[in-house]
């Protein structure tokens, strides 16, 4: 399943979209979405999420936990940030959802 408009929950599994090209130049992470040839420059937070996801799939919960651990932010704040940036990256076709379950 690959959708960009799903409701994001902690168990949502995401990965990098397979049709991308990317490079990091200094602090700049550049991603090209092949299907529309658009070039995207990821900001620091988005680039961090991108690197954490790597070549695997990761749940939102894992990303939130990483943010809490590494930056000592409150979980609510981390969750809001992760959901916001993941949604941006999904909308841009940079990430895709591979599994989405409703909580509870």
């Amino acid at each position, binding site marked *: 399943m690959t959708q960009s408009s799903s409701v994001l929950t902690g168990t949502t599994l995401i990965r990098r979209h397979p049709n991308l*090209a990317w490079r990091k*130049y200094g602090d700049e992470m550049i991603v090209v979405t092949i299907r529309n040839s658009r070039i995207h420059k990821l900001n620091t937070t988005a680039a961090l999420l991108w690197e954490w996801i790597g070549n695997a799939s990761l749940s939102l919960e894992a990303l939130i936990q990483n943010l809490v651990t590494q930056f000592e932010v409150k979980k609510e704040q981390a969750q809001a940030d992760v959901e916001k940036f993941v949604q941006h990256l999904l909308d841009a076709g940079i990430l895709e959802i591979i599994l989405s379950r409703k909580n509870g």
Partner: protein
Amino acid sequence: MSSPSIIQTLDKITVEKQTLFNVLMELTYRCNHDCVMCYNAPEKGRQELSLTEVKSCLDQLQELGCFTLIFSGGEILMRKDFFEIGRYAHTLGFAITLFTNGSLITEKNVHRILEISPLDVGITLLGSTAELHDRLAKSPGSFSRIIHAIELLKELQVRVYLKGPQMKSNLFDYESLLALGKRLNVPCEVSPLITTKTDGDKFPLQYRISQEDLLNFYRDKKIYPEGNEPSLLPPDMERDSQLCEAGITGAAINPYGDVMPCIQMPIVAGNIRQQALADIWRNAPIFNKLRGISDEDLHECRICPYKDYCSRCPGMAYLENGDLLGPAKLFCQHAQAKYQVTQERKTGKTVMANEFSLSPEKTYLRQEMNLSHSCSSCEHCACSH
């Protein structure tokens, strides 16, 4: 997250840091076509890079920051391991372009192109009919296979464009080729740039079109619509001070692992079988030389009155005359034709090719430069030989 200035930002970063951003990698010189104007010059007895060597090269390119990567040949699909190479490059995050003749892409393997996720696929077509293309490619049946391949790729939404080199033998056909591109719904680039072979052999030059035909080509408003005159630089753009990207942000690697500034500048900087790519890129004398020269160092081209109409190629100048900084006859001819067409459109008066003269500027240049070099390319360029 998106911005129209990202390319400029990238350009700035890569030029300033001399990052190897763009590489053309020839994977093989083997080809199932034998095109009359082919510029490749295979060397007998030399071995192509193995799959392991190609992968190592790709790892090194990624490490150096290379982003845009063109796989070319020969015919890339003549390598049985091509799809493995392509997939590997994709996993390393390269933005990949494939140059192919398309004739080996079939229903059976077209899905494997998708796994490479290329930005685009450039397919060479020498004519709009099977009779013409197959004769010039010396490959019976290839035209219909190529058209089928284009349709297969389009079905899978792979971006395809046609490359139509224009020669004496097919110039009459370019309008039909452009129309074929429209019918297939793919962009089509027709270009009358026929070059020497990469070993300097001038054999392909016999297929170059005449100056008069070149002029008529540039006059064609289907090629250059009114208001889009064939000068090199749009009015709001400044000429780069560097000669070109070769050695600054770009390089080429041939099937034997030789690293060069560009496929049209076959000066071997090193070989990846003997040396780390980073070492070649940072320290090879030819790369350092290219980084140290600019437009100001050019010989006659520096003050040529047609320089704004010239897409001067230092590699071509080198291949023609052994001088990176000198003129290349091919581009002198193109610059002259572009200038003439632009003037015709400004004045509304057609000037015949044989009436066109460089005399006043030539006199000036003679006085200015006091040239004393041996140059075989000056029939049309603005120097004194």
